[in-house]
């Protein structure tokens, strides 16, 4: 995209002096951080808080896995086990997955990628973070005060009438966190429509922006429905207004309808930004324009649209009428097509590219593999015949972990590594990160593949004991083994990324030589992003593989390894010269 093709191996030593003010060191006071309107600072605030909640959720996950290695459990009573898996579900869904990529990478990158100074409503953006923290505090307050044991789905007769753990506190927390998600959605939609730089037409937008726009639309149309449904449970528990109670003729299945009407689009809120990150990584590390740009952009919107028509496939056996089941199964199969198109397009992008196997690219390639398995196992659950046997078993647990951890978390890590130099102005250690990416892939598969098998054998979800079915134990032992490897592979990036904040090499404006408006400004960018609003003159990702290839050959001829490590070497050589 840059008029002067940035030569990746000759690092453009930025003319401006190294210690110019940027959004990080502009003002060190706490007040400037807590009352900031700057979308980049809000993204950093989100990064810190979301990572904290991810850590808590992972502890709960570790506890579950450890508890399930023995058929009759180790240290937990059933009551506590139910609270632990509910905590894992609620924290991971409402405080990590729905928030992570949109609020951290989305908030940071959207204005940069479309050439705007900030989000359309900066103060609303800050309100979104405060609502998230208040919601998170309420949820964690509920957890500490005794936890909630109704699972993250809060099915009605149990959550409204028979659960005597503090469901009300956690539901108010989720209700408030929902509004944080709505305000982020409003910001995304209005910024994409109204704040694009001159020349940035809709088809010159990076695919990350398309994905964030589609996510914003899904958030706006879905979140209020679950907000009011959970509010009805709060009404029922606190004010005794019977809305879903079966005793008085209400219908518990109606709650499931309203809940899943949001919660299926919610899984698209989680995965669509991951598609956006994925398109960026594949395009910039294969140094080639994405194959079928228009198709990928429209398939994001197609997923956002069709996502609202398929909620019934969560309820095939919950006394939903047979005809409704058939209709939902058909539409669920149709919604799988856009995801399949995306995967094939990414694979085709690699054809005739100049592929660099750096850490973000390894995460991206891992994403393609894991998301393909995750997506295709979804077909088992969309197909009516097999869903009757597989629903509510560990097969479903494995499916949505393949899509959520294999998809959303892998893309989140890939995106975090890719934009880390831009966010913090520091480079992370490439070799450790690369091997850790492989470790994530291995640990993940070892954890969740056995769960497919134990699910097919019929172990139901949310089971604490299985001493009456000892044949499940070998798979659970394998899964716990894998989960320890996975836990390790999530801790390592936490360590070397925080270490890179102080000890990492300084990053230039464009360490990857990538194309994109966000790489035009310095890293970390100044508070108002661009000195002047850039004018976009040409297409997105306009690499030319042949010229790229010649540059690679030239770089290799000079025996100067042209990618990253060269960055550190040139920095030292520059110091010696001075």
């Amino acid at each position, binding site marked *: 995209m840059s008029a002067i093709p940035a030569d990746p191996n000759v690092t453009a030593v930025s003319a401006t002096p190294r210690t110019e003010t940027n959004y990080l060191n502009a003002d060190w006071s706490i007040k400037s951080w807590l009352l900031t309107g700057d979308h980049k600072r809000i993204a950093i605030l989100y990064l810190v808080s979301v990572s904290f909640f991810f850590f808590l959720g992972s502890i709960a996950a570790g506890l579950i896995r450890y508890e399930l290695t023995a058929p009759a459990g180790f240290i937990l009573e059933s009551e506590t086990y139910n609270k632990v898996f509910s905590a894992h579900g609620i924290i991971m869904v409402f405080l990590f997955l729905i928030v992570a990529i949109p609020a951290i990478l989305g908030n940071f990158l959207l204005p940069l990628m479309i050439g705007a100074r900030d989000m359309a409503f900066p103060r609303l953006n800050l309100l979104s973070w405060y609502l998230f923290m208040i919601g998170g505090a309420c949820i964690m307050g509920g957890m500490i005060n005794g936890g909630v044991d109704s699972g993250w789905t809060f099915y009605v007769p149990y959550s409204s009438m028979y659960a005597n753990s503090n469901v009300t506190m956690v539901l108010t927390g989720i209700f408030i966190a929902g509004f944080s998600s709505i305000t982020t959605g409003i910001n995304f939609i209005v910024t994409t429509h109204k704040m694009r730089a001159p020349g940035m037409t809709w088809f010159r937008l990076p695919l990350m922006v398309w994905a964030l726009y589609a996510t914003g639309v899904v958030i706006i149309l879905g979140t*209020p429905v679950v907000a009011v449904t959970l509010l009805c449970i709060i009404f029922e528990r606190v004010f005794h207004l019977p809305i879903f109670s079966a005793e008085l003729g209400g219908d518990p299945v109606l709650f499931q309808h309203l809940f899943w009407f949001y919660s299926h689009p919610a899984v698209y809120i989680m995965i669509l930004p991951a598609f956006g990150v994925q398109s960026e990584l594949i395009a910039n590390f294969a140094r080639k324009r994405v194959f079928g740009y228009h198709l990928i952009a429209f398939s994001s919107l197609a997923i956002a649209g069709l996502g609202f028509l398929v909620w019934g496939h969560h309820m095939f056996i919950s006394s939903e009428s047979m005809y409704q089941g058939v209709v939902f199964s058909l539409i669920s199969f149709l919604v799988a097509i856009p995801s399949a198109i995306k995967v094939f397009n990414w694979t085709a992008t690699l054809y005739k590219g100049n592929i660099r196997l750096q850490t973000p690219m390894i995460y991206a390639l891992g994403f393609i593999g894991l998301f393909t398995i995750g997506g295709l196992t979804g077909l088992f659950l969309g197909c009516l015949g097999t869903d009757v046997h597989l629903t509510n078993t560990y097969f479903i647990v494995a499916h949505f972990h393949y899509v959520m951890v294999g998809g959303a978390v892998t893309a989140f890590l890939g995106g975090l590594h890719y934009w880390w130099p831009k966010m913090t102005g520091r480079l992370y250690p490439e070799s450790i990160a690369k091997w850790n990416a492989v470790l994530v892939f291995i640990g993940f598969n070892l954890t969740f593949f056995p769960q497919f098998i134990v699910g097919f054998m019929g172990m139901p979800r949310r089971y604490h004991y299985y001493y009456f079915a000892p044949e499940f134990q070998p798979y659970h032992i394998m899964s716990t083994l894998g989960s320890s490897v996975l836990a390790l592979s999530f801790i390592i990036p936490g360590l070397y990324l925080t270490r890179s904040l102080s000890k990492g090499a300084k990053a230039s404006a464009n360490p990857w030589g990538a194309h994109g408006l966000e790489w035009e400004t310095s890293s970390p960018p100044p508070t108002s992003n661009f000195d002047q609003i850039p004018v976009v003159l040409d297409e997105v990702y306009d690499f030319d593989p042949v010229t790229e290839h010649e540059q690679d050959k030239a770089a290799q001829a000079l025996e100067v390894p042209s990618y990253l490590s060269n960055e550190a070497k040139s920095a030292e050589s520059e110091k010696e010269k001075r």
Partner: protein
Amino acid sequence: MAAIASDHGHGHGHDEALHHQFENMEQQNDSYIVGMWTFLVTEVMFFGALFLIYTLYRSMYQMDWYLAHEALNVQMGMVNTFVLLFSSFTVAMAVRYAQLQKKWGVLSMLAITQVCAGAFMVVKYFEYQEKFGHHLYPGPGFGSHPEYLHGATPNFAQLYFGLYFGMTGLHGLHVLVGMIVIGYLMAKWWRNSPMVTKDYIPTELVGLYWHFVDLVWIFLFPLMYLMPKP
């Protein structure tokens, strides 16, 4: 692509009301309007789910809900609807005066709107008082005076009143929030703060919110109070 950033947009004089992230007033105004409408779409979905629950249960228990709805006082409902329609008109006038930057016009219209909103809440208070008196609030004591149920089966009538208190209560809460926001807006106009005098958008946004609250009542009133005989 962006190397030669043309210095185009900064020729004309800066409006004081222009926020730093926008390039010109037209972009800013349009952004706020579209942003507010996006928020109103979420509110539509918010109340939409409740209307869906209402539609389902009413189709399931038509006769009992028709009998239970006779406990509602239609005259009070009509008064409330007139009050809200009139307040919608006064808010629209307030927005008009804001565009013409006439301070006292805005303040007077907003004052009338506050009075109307207050009247709405008072009428609602009396309605609720009457229902509590007749033991029509769902819960253990529901329906202890069956004559107020007009022959409806207690279980399904409890569903009706559960939804009645839920939906009108939530709508009342939105009216309350509207009164607070209009109060804040009047304080800003009273103190001639440039935020509202130079830029009519904040007043228009409050107007949009208030019209939405009136919109919900336009649907709530016939569904709750004026049920046709099944």
